């Protein structure tokens, strides 16, 4: 029984080690990443603009097609992350309650096994076995993959809350639910958010695979470039995906900072 939890903890420790988010570094620090990304995008635009595009390239590299692809990609990431949270956070809460102690190791083992299966296999299996294609099928694949980091971080976040704080809360007459809502969850927020950030980054990257089952996204652009042997198209698709991933990671880092309970920040006033 007790052998599973340490594994979970170790995994989640890896998960939590996202680079320290835009910490205390002032507004100059906060602006660095958006500026770099803007410079990359502008350079890419100028470069593409300066080239004579053939008809195949022009079909992929126009404002309408690219904004559709980016829009689909963002939708894939956002929807899959929201669904992941809706499943993983409540599950994490349930699995840290005393009454689920017996089933905890089994469920975690199961989900960890699930994560070991690559998303692409999940997508292909869904498509081939159930003829399940398109946006929704892609969401299923993404969610399955992203649940584990959020779940483990939720559990670790809840379990790392100081036992004394909970006992004091119980001792003052907070009900179990009040202890969860007022103490455990707020105090677990930083760790849970680190899990959410990881899920977002995983999803924004993996969403490029959705193109294989007609799920849309920036994967379409890259695939178009690959199948027509147009390097420029491939590069545009890849750069846009990377910029989007970095932007989302940056925004998630901002959210992490903003949502962290004030009393837990390491600054002393």
């Amino acid at each position: 029984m007790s052998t599973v939890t340490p594994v979970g903890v170790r995994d989640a420790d890896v998960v939590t080690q996202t680079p320290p988010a835009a910490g205390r570094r002032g507004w100059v620090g906060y602006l660095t990443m958006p500026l770099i990304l803007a410079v990359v995008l502008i350079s890419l635009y100028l470069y593409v603009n300066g080239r004579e595009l053939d008809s195949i390239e022009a079909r992929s590299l126009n404002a309408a097609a690219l904004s559709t692809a980016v829009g689909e990609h963002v939708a894939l990431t956002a929807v899959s992350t929201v669904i992941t949270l809706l499943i993983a956070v409540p599950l994490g809460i349930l699995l840290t309650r005393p009454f689920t102690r017996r089933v905890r190791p089994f469920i975690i083992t199961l989900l960890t096994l699930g994560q070991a299966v690559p998303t692409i296999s999940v997508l292909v299996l869904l498509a081939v076995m159930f003829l399940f294609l398109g946006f929704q099928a892609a969401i299923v694949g993404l969610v399955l993959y992203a649940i584990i980091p959020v779940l483990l971080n939720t559990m670790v976040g809840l379990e790392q809350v100081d036992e004394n704080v909970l006992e004091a809360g119980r001792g003052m007459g907070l009900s179990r639910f009040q202890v969860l809502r007022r103490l455990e969850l707020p105090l677990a927020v930083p760790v849970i958010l680190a899990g959410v950030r990881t899920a977002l980054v995983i999803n924004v990257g993996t969403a490029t695979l959705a193109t294989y089952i007609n799920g849309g996204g920036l994967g379409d652009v890259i695939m178009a470039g690959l199948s027509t042997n147009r390097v420029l198209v491939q590069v545009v698709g890849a750069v846009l995906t990377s910029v989007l991933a970095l932007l989302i990671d940056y925004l998630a880092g901002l959210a992490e900072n903003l949502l962290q309970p004030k009393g837990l920040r390491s600054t002393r006033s």
Partner: protein
Amino acid sequence: MTQTPQTAPEPEVMIRLENLTKRFPGTQRNAVDGLTLDIHAGEIVVLVGPSGCGKTTTMKMINRIIEPTSGRIILGGEDVTTTNADQLRRRIGYVIQQTGLFPHLTIGENVATVPKLLGWDAARTRSRVDELLSMVNMDPDEYRGRYPKQLSGGQQQRVGVARALGGDPQVMLMDEPFGAIDPITRERLQNEFLRLQSEVRKTIVFVTHDIDEAIKMGDRIAILQEGSSIAQYDTPEKILTAPANDFVRDFIGGGASLKRLSLSRVRDIELASWPTVSAADSLEQAHRVLRESDHSAVLVLDTEGRPARWVGAEDLRRGAGQSLDRIGTVPQAVVESRATLSDALNELIAARYAVTVVVDQDGRHLGVVDIEQINEAIRSMRHSAVAEARTEFADGRTAP
């Protein structure tokens, strides 16, 4: 408000533990084995014993953080063994060693926890929070908006006490509340807490493993053996003068006479006088005062009457031409009048002129304590305690 048995002179029983037993799953022996104990209203009862004796388990069964296996808990005449535990706990203050302050909430919000649970309105809660913070000597305006992390350990524990008093409970449970605090701050917090208790008169169950703390804090002490069985339940005086058995004697350890000094306060004895001069006086005046006394130094008081300097004859000679508050040494051995004789003796031993200076709450000089007075106090305590033990023995109230 409660129906206690009609024994008029006996103080009201606030907490009655009846045959209370706890066995943790998977253990062979009962952690608490059939404990029966009456705790009177307005008293501090200290549960003290070696580690593993079940004292903390006993305390935690009173607010049912640990549910008893069998037995009954009666609070103010009402059987609360099976009532709603959350409701019960809002009526019982709870202070733990590691403070357990909520790190994400401000000090004000922490203290407001129970008033909010009890559904008090915002204005009442706010004024209660300020009142409580003032009670534990913390300026509400300065500390209300801070976070626990920004406070020292001693301040955190003060907030812990204020928070426990939030809903004005009749009963408080305190689990080694001063255990994790440095000795000097602990001393201060203990004294402050005793002063606070003299105002609020709560019924307090206090757990510690430190017999000295038990003697200092307790109106009554329950010395517990394994399985929370009571070796002796009595006043500190009686436990020190008439230990019930070898276990108690061993547990008190050596120096029972010295420990008894923790029972009396400096304000209870007559202070000795010591020659003093004002800081504004001249060196010549100080010289004269010193010559006329049979002491080797005079105590210089500042304009507020607070001890400022010890000045001896040698200091006067070397400091010629300077003002009195610039020569000599700063008095180190200073205690407030509510300190115990034990505190005073501790200071006295290391003090330069073998006396401890006593000051009032505002730091103004009241007098001094020297070794003679400590001796006298020990003698008179021994007399009265022995006399009392004899009368009780004659009354047949204690078993031989």
